[in-house]
């Protein structure tokens, strides 16, 4: 018949940050490995293919790090002054970097040799990028211009000088080799097409100096950051603003895609990196760093997160591998291991049975099978047998009492329903009584359980009021009383505060009303009445209706 229904344990949702799939995912990053450089980290670029080398430009050098060993793989120091915006080609063989003297320098990663120098900019070049066809280079310079260079011939193809301030941000399209985007301190973001040399195709106003721009892999949307705002623009609709998100409280400096283009990461001077969902632009997680973040790099497999900071620190964080997780939490891993072992044993058994089964029942024979019984907890087992004292004892063990008070309260609730609380509480010795009393004292202030705890406390007092108690129990009863008194005191205070707030609110509303009446007196407006003709018209309609 109807199986025994489990005791309902009422657990209320916890207030605070919700644990979502994203928080779990990003929380798995290990403790960072930090490397100290001499100047602020201007730019970090990640090689798009394995082994995902990381190019870091800071001060007068560009360093290529190995993301696994955190060692410097190569470093390029042939810069007179600061080097900026080193970026690796998609095949991982070449690296390009701008510098203070206005040159763009191309190096071979394998041989460390300087292959090309693109000269033509009059100001420092802060960002430079390879186009998708790998044979062109786009550079974004402080001389307010954006230039496209031919790689083999080392010549300038086009130069756009539309900006009115430093161009400090830029990116290229991942689909077309002709499209690239520039962001400037003059608040604008411009989209250029190399096939139309007359000027920019789209120009949008970001509202504050643009620090970084990014084009989605689909090439239909681009994102710009600058100031404390992130703006999302629709490229196909000619630069329509899709979203404005402001989650940082200081300037946002860098922008990166993560999780296969499903998440967007921004880092800012407020020392946070925020991770957004690219559909809703809701923040799903926040990473904290010790100093203002200037640049971010995330490997395509999300395994390494690199952040460059203003004080010259590079922080490299790895995703936890399973072996590491096991080493960190040996107890839990042991449990998992055990489980897998038992599972294996049962599997073995099952195999054994199926192999050795020679008896095949006839179709008209009903074979009795063992029914799967659901797991029944100990307290339910005792409740089922009407052993109320034992059921209460099982939920008063220190572990349940302290870690899962909802279970204890749930069983107490069930005992009240079954009218068995009195018999469960009566006739207890000193130690079990003290465990009940400490539980009550600890939880009587909890508003989610208070009504049941108070009921239990009343019953307990009723039972033990006339019996002689040991000094220890007496002390606990007094402690309980103290808790109750304190709670009463709190409630009194709260009600006083509430009363004060009521007075304040009432006075503000009357004031507001008074001011609004003044406003009405200031400009008298007479409500207009329908004219006789209009009224007649209305009546006519009524007759119809």
């Amino acid at each position, binding site marked *: *018949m*109807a*199986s*025994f*229904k489990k005791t*309902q344990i*009422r657990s209320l949702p916890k207030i605070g940050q919700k644990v*979502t*799939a994203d928080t779990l995912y990003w929380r798995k990053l290990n403790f960072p490995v930090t490397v100290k450089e001499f100047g602020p980290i201007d730019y970090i670029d990640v090689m798009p293919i394995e082994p995902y080398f990381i190019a870091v430009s800071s001060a007068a050098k560009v360093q290529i790090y190995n993301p696994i060993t955190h060692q410097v793989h190569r470093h390029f120091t042939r810069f007179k002054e600061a080097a900026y915006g080193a970026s690796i080609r998609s095949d991982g063989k070449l690296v390009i970097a701008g510098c203070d003297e206005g040159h763009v320098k191309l190096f071979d990663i394998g041989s460390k040799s300087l292959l090309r120098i693109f000269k033509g900019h009059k100001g420092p070049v802060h960002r430079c990028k390879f186009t998708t066809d790998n044979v062109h280079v786009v550079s974004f310079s402080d001389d307010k211009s954006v230039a496209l260079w031919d790689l083999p011939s080392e010549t300038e193809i086009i130069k756009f000088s539309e900006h009115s301030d430093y161009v400090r941000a830029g990116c290229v399209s991942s689909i077309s080799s002709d499209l690239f985007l520039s962001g400037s301190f003059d608040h604008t973001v411009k989209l250029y097409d190399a096939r139309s040399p007359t000027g920019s195709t789209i120009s949008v106003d970001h509202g504050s100096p643009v620090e970084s721009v990014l084009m989605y892999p689909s090439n239909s949307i681009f994102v710009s950051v600058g100031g404390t705002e992130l703006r999302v623009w629709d490229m196909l609709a000619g630069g329509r603003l899709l979203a404005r998100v402001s989650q940082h409280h200081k300037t946002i400096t860098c922008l990166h895609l993560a999780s296969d283009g499903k998440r967007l990461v921004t880092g800012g001077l407020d020392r946070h990196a925020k991770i957004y*969902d690219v*559909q*809703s632009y*809701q923040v*799903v997680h926040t990473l904290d760093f010790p100093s203002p973040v200037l640049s971010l790099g995330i490997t395509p497999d999300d395994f390494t997160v690199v952040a460059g900071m203003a004080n010259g620190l590079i922080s490299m964080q790895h995703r936890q591998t399973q072996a590491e997780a096991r080493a960190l939490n040996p107890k839990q891993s042991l449990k998992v291991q055990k489980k897998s072992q038992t599972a294996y044993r049962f599997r073995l058994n099952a195999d054994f049975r199926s192999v050795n089964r020679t008896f095949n029942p006839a179709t008209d024979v009903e074979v*009795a099978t063992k029914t799967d019984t659901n797991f029944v907890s100990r307290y339910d087992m005792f409740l089922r047998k009407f052993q109320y004292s034992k059921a209460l004892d099982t939920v008063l063990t220190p572990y349940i009492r302290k870690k899962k008070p909802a279970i204890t309260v749930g069983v107490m609730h069930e005992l*009240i*329903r*079954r*009218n068995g609380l009195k018999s469960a509480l009566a006739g207890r010795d000193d130690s079990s009584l003290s465990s009940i009393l400490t539980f009550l004292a600890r939880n009587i202030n909890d508003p989610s359980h208070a*009504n049941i705890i108070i*009921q239990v406390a009343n019953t307990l007092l009723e039972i033990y009021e006339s019996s002689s108690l040991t000094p220890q129990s007496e002390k606990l009863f007094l402690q309980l009383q103290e808790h109750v008194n304190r709670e009463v005191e709190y409630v009194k205070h709260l009600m006083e505060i509430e009363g004060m707030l009521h007075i304040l609110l009432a006075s503000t509303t009357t004031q507001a009303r008074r001011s609004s009446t003044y406003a009405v007196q200031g400009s008298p407006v007479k409500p*207009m009445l*329908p*004219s006789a003709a*209009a009224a007649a*018209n*209305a*009546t*006519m*309609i*009524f*007759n*119809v*209706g």
Partner: protein
Amino acid sequence: MVKMANKKTRGPDKTQANTSDIVVKKLDDATDIVRQPPVFTNDSKYICIASGRQIGIYSVESAEKVHSLEEHTFDVIGLAIKDDNILLSCDASGETIEWNINNGTTLKKAPLVVAGIKEFHSFHYPGNGKVLVATPSTYTTNMSSLWIVDSHTRPRKLFADIKSTPHSIAFGCNQGNGSLVVVALQDHSVVVKDITNGVDKKHMTDQRKFTCVALHSEKLIMATGDISGRILIWHDFVHKSRPVKTVYHWHTLPVNSVCFSSEGEYLYSGGSEKVMVKWRLGMSRKQFLPRMGSSIKYIVNAPDNICVATSHSDNAIRFIDSTNKINRAIIGLVKHDPIRGFADTEPIKESVMPTGLVFDPRSHGIFFNAQAGFLQLFDPQKNSLIFNMDVANRNVLTDERNLVIGNAEVLRVAVSPTGEWLATLEVWSNMSAGYHDMNLKFWRYDAVQANYELNTDVTMPHQDRVTALCFQPGLLGTEMPCLVSIGRDLKFKIWRLVDDTDIYRQKESWSCDVAGDFRKLTPSALSFSEDGSLMAIAFQDTVTLWDPTSINLNTTLSHTLVQEPIELMEFGRDNCFRYLVCASKSALYAWDVISQGLVWKVGQLHSSVRCLVPDPKSCYMAAVLQNSEVFVFSPSSSKPVHSVPKMNSSEPIAALFVPRPNPLASGPEWLINSRLLIVDDQQEFLCVDDVSSAGFNQKLTTPISHMDSLPWTPFSAMKAEKQISAAKQLVPVVHQTSGIQGYKSVQSLLETSASALPPMSRICSLFMSDLMIKHGPKAVTAKVNSVDRTSTDLPLSNGHIDSKTQDFSEETTLQKLLTLDCQWLVETVK
């Protein structure tokens, strides 16, 4: 203000009442199947079950009904198998009928003649043409006399003053000499008679009252159960005056039934613990079958010893196989046990079927209480149970010997207008401990799974008992549904569905939006206008009208003539949408919410109004009085269109207008689209219906609504995916309770300064079309018959148009006139 005040009559006028073709009939199919113990046929293939005046023959294998035998005119009091395929039945008037079990035909009818007695209590058939019948005792009430009736001798009285329950009489055969032994129970003693040998014995024990008795089929062994839960096995009780007894004591509550297995090896016993105990005779071993759902009334063993049937108080018969498992059940409509354990101050309407009858627009069924913590859905068209749903999801607790342990009870149910949402309020209270629990649960209907899924569970929605729940009607599909609850903690609360969807999952839950109160008065009744634009809450004698979206108090209505607290309140439907009918202890009256005046009042009713139910398909309303009088009236006037006089002694509990699948061809207007269903305190269903359609067995012709959720079959592929119909669909009517047609355009015209207006010729046609009544396929329901003449003589300044009352053709012609009228205006302006 008062238009027609103080019309004091003793009860509403009965001038118009024509009772000739309207009958009140009991729904037989809804009666219980566990009043009499069921009987197995000799081959154990069928089981015969008496339910009211009917007898059902069910297959044991499938628990399906095979035949329904309907010849008796009174309740059946006993069944017996005469031969291999002959069933003998007897009703309370003493008529016995022999039936052929195989084809369900009547073989023989014969009245029982016992010394001119017309009433019989129970009927037994020991065989050989002898019949045992119990008749009312001459001197003591609630006791019976037992007679033996034979075909060739005069009826003989065996015992006087025995208990009248069916299981207080047992008979058996003395194997030694083949004589018939009959035993019967008195309160504190067992009386034994050996018919053939004429031996009389009376055995007494201590002060415990006997409850049931059974005799072993082969040996001369008797088993008795008593109210302390003890079972006694008596050996050799015919001859010895102090027989040897064995005590089997496990039950703590009275034993309701004992039964020997047909081989005589085992003894089955059951009681209110909901546990069937299987004792092995002569040994201390026993087996239990716990949590059988509800208390056991009868246990019957099949002759082939494979199957045991138990009758339960939740109107179910369950079959237990030889492995001590329930494998089948015949489930009828569950009767709600009166709630115990609540305070005694609760009125009776709160203790029996507290939810009343709630119509479910999705399945066209009715929701009401089943056993404690359960809710059932009953199909009134087919008179069958659709499902029984566990709302509380708690173990059903049984009483202890001197202690009533209450269970969670469903007190209120509300169904959203689309039927998608179900709100239930369950209460568990223990007044002795001063503790109570209350849960408001919101269930959503899942069309794929075809069941209700719990969406939100609110603990303690109000601090004190919730008086009423009501969903807001008339909402569009895009609007979030809304529920209003009122409670004795002086508050009314508005619950809304909140969409909490984030990027990880879809989530919707209900939460309290607004909690309000009114002058610290207790809210007692709640009603929404048909279009959902107005919410009325009664606070004692005052009616408050609220705007449900902004929760602004529109008006309060009160009058010196009506100062009793309002108990029931309902808005009129259809063209009586403007009337709000209220019932207090002794008066029934109606407010007009538009003119805000008292329209009529009927004072000094014979007894208080128990139910006030509006008909969803017409403008009529029914008031069911406590003395079971029924008045059907239109809220616009105090004159009833029909009244039903006092029916019987039973007291009505709840009532509901049930829409018909097919409208009636002829009959009174209020019966064309629906019929009135009333439940009395015995939980019998009464139906007020036209005599022409009183045969309720008509089969359902409309398609069943849950067809959509059935799995795909080859035949369903043949059905058209989309059906196009020329018939216009009904769209919920929204009454215009405020504003004038085209008021906005008039307003804008007047407010714009004349210099800024565009040329009149350009805006004229636009302006005129704004003033016209728009009707696409939406607003028109081609319903000609219900043109209400009272609404035409309304003062025009009120400005109300009831588009539904309009005759379609009339409207179009008038509109044509109107457009013609405008034409001259346009021309003159030009």
